[in-house]
């Protein structure tokens, strides 16, 4: 399971980098889907199968599909790839890159200085997740439903308005 974790984490990192650097939106999206898939495998290897399945169903199967729909509807051609290239010249990468590397260093520091036994997480099955959600975290689930409703109404309003 450790091998699976590190392999899929590596795939996720490389795929995310490629997703950021592609100029064609469709290719970037494909790499992002691959990255999400790899993250799902990470969850699986850490003992969270329910979360892994939901990661694929919700992120790869619904959110990315929505983005793909928008891409399909806008139907941007080669001129938009050129614009993208123009939009992100070398120097525009500099400051975000410095900030991101500072974050990576901080995270590395935090991980290395933390007690080591935390890496081996316990496996949690789907039923345990369901029980926790619908008894302990009752208020959170209801708030989530309100949030989803607001999201639906808001996004529909914005989409239909334009």
């Amino acid at each position: 399971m450790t091998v699976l974790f590190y392999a899929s984490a590596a795939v996720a990192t490389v795929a995310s980098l490629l997703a950021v650097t592609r100029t064609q939106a469709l290719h970037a999206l494909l790499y992002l889907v691959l990255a999400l898939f790899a993250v799902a495998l990470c969850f699986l290897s850490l003992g969270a199968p329910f979360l892994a399945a939901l990661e694929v169903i919700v992120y790869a199967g619904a959110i990315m599909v929505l983005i793909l729909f928008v891409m399909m509807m806008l139907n941007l051609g080669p001129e938009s790839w050129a614009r993208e290239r123009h939009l992100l010249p070398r120097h525009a990468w500099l400051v975000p890159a410095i900030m991101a590397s500072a974050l990576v260093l901080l995270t590395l520091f935090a991980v290395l200085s933390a007690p080591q036994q935390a890496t081996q997480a316990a496996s949690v099955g789907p039923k345990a997740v369901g029980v926790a959600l619908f008894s302990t975290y009752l208020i959170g689930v209801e708030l989530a439903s309100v949030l989803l409703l607001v999201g639906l109404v808001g996004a529909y309003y914005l989409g239909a308005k334009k």
Partner: protein
Amino acid sequence: MSGTLDVIVRMVLTLALAMASASMLVWVERRLLAAFQDRYGPNRVGPFGLLQLVADSIKLFTKEDWTPPFADRVPFILAPTIIVATGLLSFAVVPFTAAGALVDLNIGVLYFLALSSLSVYSIMLAGMASNSKYSLLGAVRAAGQMISYELAMGLSVASVVALAGSFNLREIVAAQEGLPYVVLQPVAFLIFLIAGLAESKRSPFDLPEAENEIVAGYHTEYSSMKFAFFFLGEYLALVLFSSIATALFLGGGNGPWLPTIVWFAIKMAAIIYVFIWVRATFPRVRYDRLMAFGWKILVPVAILNLLVTGALVVARSAGG
């Protein structure tokens, strides 16, 4: 614990069963449709036309494998492989035999739903990468239809999960010993079948490839084996949905006297027969009616069904 050899045997068996039944289905469907329409169907190649399949595959293999110069190459090649891959991978959790599926996944139902939600990519990539009008029109139609009915399918499966209290297909089948869930969940069964028809884009929901308006839809620009992959994917989906329906609603391989795999095959064949029968009977529906039916009828009915099922499950477990 099963040995390595046993696992390899089951792996090959799963792959062979899935491929063989999907490709045999082409012949079965053509013969059955012919029977419904009072004609012969393919009957020249081999006994009863059984070798038609071999002839077709040789023909498709030796056709020009054309990747259009105006297409986006990598997604164009990726698209047909995704639909076959998601179909074949789903069979890993179908409990064909008494020994169970290839892997006894604790999240089996979710695994199936996750893979079927990924198959939308195949259609959308095909449409976008082809850079052709008919492809794009077909892909947009197909994707809108697939995601709408996926929702109804997920909701209908949720009631079965509530009854069995598990995502594991082997445990769901075991919970139906004596009483298959089709008796307790006729509404969910019907919704699952209708959503399965729409998900696999079969008649009467075959608008994405409505040949009289948009040629061949999202696979207009495809040829050779890449074209065949889309058809294989459609038939794999048909076999997959009928086998999942068998496991979820018809008690899987449960049954007296006969071995598990025979019972499973009989029930599966019955569902497939209904699918083909529907194709021979109903005309294609209109797109606005298709979407309205999915959102205004199937989804609300599935939600109400889940509410009623939930109340009964909780009442029984609280009382007993």
